[in-house]
């Protein structure tokens, strides 16, 4: 479709351009804007009528004036996809950033992505061993799950994400993930850190990167994750790959969303974020899963930093309402020098129940993880009490629990950045550590398991 160029801009506001007297323009249509200096910008139609068209400009409206020429391209935003995406680095709008050639498209895919029919989904149930004890034992990751990292500024969430990307595999299998990495507004330094690590381990060849950095246009961030997920869907459902999508930082994404809302003078919701942010985030997070009749899968690992370490802030809150659990990084543990500083208490994997046990991990997994959790939770609670009344007020049982909570953090949570523990190793470690508590206080374990696994009570 050859299209006409309009010079009918009336208003420019924030990332939005308003223009009039156009022929009928489609909702969601892609737009190019030619500035007076000859450069071009891209945008998308947010509102269209006979009288007025509103365009959201991805690169921001800087430099646009009322003489700029606007062309409507007749189609919604599509990403050229092919297997050639693997091993490539693209910018936040899908253009090569690695100096390589354009992607030769097998097809062009609508980046908004259609909803998976719930009837066509398959329940995720394959255990992924991340090699990180706190996750594998207590917050088990399942292939096809969306499990975010709730972190905060200054915490080592990137190291954890990378460690997981490196180590994640199905138990007893070498099948690897393709990593689709999506950067939204992170610093060049952070990005280099990711890239260097992926390069170092050779993972880059098996990865596709979509990169929007802090100094790239903020509005572009609204499409970057959609591009990444479109690529992921193509690789998973057309080429049978198991794809791990890591995107960071959702907080920057949400801030861009807020910016658009403000420019449109929408009624803001909590803390100024738009009322539709839940739906908008769901359109990303729900693009994880497994579908009937396809071999591949999409597992999502979004990272977000909680403003003010506040888990009730709308960004973590709405995310938690959509994802299938969360891994919470704790500043307190980080300050105590523990890596990875995962706080298992507020962490949760909702799909864990269906993927652990005799057939998949080990018969003791469920009970031992309950016991580890319960003992740690009690120990942590007692720390508070001890601070007030002192250790003398504790009975024997409580004393043991209290001590255990330190051991738990030091021996179980703490591990090396390259330490890849097998699930058997992790579960054996649980038994070893729980041996510090009298068996009569281990209420969640039954005699059968104790006689099978307990280091000192075991009956060979």
């Amino acid at each position, binding site marked *: 479709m050859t299209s006409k160029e309009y010079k009918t801009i009336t208003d420019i506001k924030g990332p939005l351009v308003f223009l009039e007297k156009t022929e009928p323009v489609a909702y969601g249509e892609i737009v190019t804007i030619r500035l007076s200096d000859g450069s071009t910008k891209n945008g998308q139609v947010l509102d269209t009528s006979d009288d007025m068209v509103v365009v959201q400009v991805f690169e921001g409206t800087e430099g646009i004036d009322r003489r700029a020429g606007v062309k409507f391209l007749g189609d919604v935003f599509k990403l050229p996809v092919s297997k050639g995406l693997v091993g490539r680095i693209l910018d936040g709008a899908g253009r090569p950033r690695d100096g390589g050639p354009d992607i030769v498209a097998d097809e062009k895919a609508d980046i908004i992505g259609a909803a*998976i029919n719930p009837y066509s989904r398959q329940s995720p149930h394959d255990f992924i061993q991340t090699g990180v004890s706190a996750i594998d034992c207590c917050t088990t990751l399942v292939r096809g799950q969306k499990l975010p990292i709730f972190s905060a500024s200054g915490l080592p969430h990137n190291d954890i994400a990378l460690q997981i990307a490196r180590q994640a595999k199905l138990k007893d299998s070498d099948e690897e993930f393709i990593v689709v990495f999506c950067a939204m507004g992170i610093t060049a330094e952070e990005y280099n850190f990711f890239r260097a690590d992926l390069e170092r381990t050779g993972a880059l060849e098996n990865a596709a990167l979509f990169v929007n950095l802090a100094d790239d246009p903020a509005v572009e961030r609204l499409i970057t994750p959609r591009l990444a997920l479109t690529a992921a869907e193509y690789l998973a459902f057309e080429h049978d790959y198991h794809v791990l999508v890591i995107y960071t930082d959702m907080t920057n994404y949400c801030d861009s969303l807020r910016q658009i809302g403000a420019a449109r003078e929408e009624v803001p919701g909590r803390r100024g974020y738009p009322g539709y942010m839940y739906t908008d985030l769901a359109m990303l997070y*729900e693009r994880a899963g497994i579908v*009937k009749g396809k071999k591949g899968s999409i597992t999502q690992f979004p990272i977000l930093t909680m403003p003010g370490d506040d888990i*009730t802030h709308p960004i973590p*809150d709405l995310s938690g309402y959509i994802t299938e659990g969360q891994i919470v990084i704790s500043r307190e543990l980080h300050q105590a020098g523990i890596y990875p500083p995962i706080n298992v208490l507020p962490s949760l994997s909702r799909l864990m129940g269906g993927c652990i046990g005799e057939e998949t991990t080990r018969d003791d997994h469920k009970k031992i993880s309950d016991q580890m959790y319960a003992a740690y939770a009690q120990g942590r609670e007692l720390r508070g009490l001890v601070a007030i*009344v002192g250790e003398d007020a504790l009975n024997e049982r409580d004393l043991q629990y209290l001590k255990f909570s330190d051991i738990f953090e030091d021996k179980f949570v703490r591990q090396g950045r390259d330490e890849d523990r097998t699930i058997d190793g992790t579960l054996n470690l649980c038994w070893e550590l729980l041996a510090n508590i009298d068996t009569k206080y281990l209420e969640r374990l039954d005699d059968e398991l104790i006689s099978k696994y307990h280091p000192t009570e075991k009956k060979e």
Partner: protein
Amino acid sequence: MSNNEGVIYRISGPVVTATGIDARMYEVVRVGHEKLMGEVIEIHGEQSVIQVYEDTSGIRPGEPVFSTGQTLSVQLGPGLLTQIYDGIQRPLQTLEEVMGVFITRGVDADGLDLEKKWTFESTASVGDEVSGGQVIGTVQETDTITHKIMVPPKASGKIKSIESGEFNVTETVCTLDDGTEIQMMQEWPVRHPRPFNQKYAPDTPLVTGMRILDFLFPLAKGGAAGIPGPFGSGKTVTQQSLAKYSDAQIVVYIGCGERGNEMTEVLDEFPHLIDPNTGKPLMNRTVMIANTSNMPVAAREASVYTGITIAEYFRDQGYDVALMADSTSRWAEAMREISSRLEEMPGEEGYPAYLSSRLAEFYERAGRVETLNGDDGSVTVIGAVSPPGGDISEPVSQGTLRIVKVFWGLDAGLARQRHFPAINWLNSYSLYPQSLNQWFRDNIASDFPEVRTEISALLKVEAELQEIVQLVGSDALPMDQQLTLEVARMIRVYFLQQNGFDPVDAYSGVEQQYAMARAILTFQEEAKKAMAAGAVLEDVVNVPARIELMRARFAEGYLEKIEGLVEEMVSQIGNSVEAQ
């Protein structure tokens, strides 16, 4: 002159404005060349504002809009059970057949299979005077559910002909002497409650098999309950447990703006789960509506109406229906989103000013009624609420709490302690006990309400004592108070906690609940006696029979064992005095 074709003037997300069309409020229209389904939600002079149930990308001003003369309706008849629909009653299975695994747009699908033949057995005869709601025949729809074919609400007359046999749902099975033809399928506009003769006060509990609910905060058949709670606190698990174990005859489960995988889980699980009340697969009594968070918001807005209309239809057949909506907050958010596109004056937190009246209208459709045919049927509604940050001072929670009589408050702290169901026993309430006490006395035990009162009193005392313990430690309390703490702990761990996934303990019959509560009180009495006679608290608490009593609930046949275990416990506690 009325005009049934107009043109699109404006498109803004799911909201489309058309001109040149004479449409009524809530009329269904077809939008654009692809004829996407939409509904008129506002009229401004020449302009009709339409919410569209499918994605509007790529649609342009100038494309046509057609009115249909219909309001948004559902198809009611044999074939509803075991189905899973989207928010506007399109079967998801049909959508998969037509579109593949991703939901695209522009596909119409009937809610009922119009071809399938059902065996209709007439129960009325030629010459009978019938009127709206009267049953004229039956279809055995699933193993357990007999679908009753009713005269549509507004029809009446003398039966001219009626025939048993094999029919599809659009074939006429009965004619009246005024020429009215009756088919097995009726259509009903979703935003209108179906009629009934009168509402009754509820007097029977909806037995859920969850101890904290049935015992402490019972819900009546025909009542309404709200379950607010922050993310991950157990709204969905609770709703699913209710769908599995409650003694409703029909379950309508609405996944409204929530996760796709949760619906898949129900689809996977229910066909294999046995209804404890009938011994048949649970799917047989279930209708599901799934309009997940990433499916169009306008259809999400409609989904609760689609669900409740189906529920009312089964109620009219004389069934006790339970409807779960997970989550009503997402429904409210859909209203908010549409309202803001309409540029309506926002109320609190951007929700439309009519939010609370919509909530009230919805919950009002719950109730125990005398149906048009004089039978007794009920719709019980259980709505999950997802308050931002878990803070229930927000409009949807507040609007809900003003209407419902049962509040099951989920608590992030309890969920974090893995105390499930994480229902806070201190702030939850039910306003039904008064009207249900008689039922409990007649059917379970004559002192049931008194036992309940004792149990909840113990929990209240515990909460007060805990405040002191936080300051001085439990060893500083006098022995009788330490015992109270142990008893309360037993209530929490043994009685209130119930893992929704435990193969046995997930369901606990009311008789068993009563026996367990009694066992706790017996322990308290015996421990008091023993300690008065010099026994030590720790010995009393640790008698093996008490531990066994508590553990045995995870094995089948627990109810029969309780009495023996309690006797054993009593005797061991007695022995702990002699041991001194």
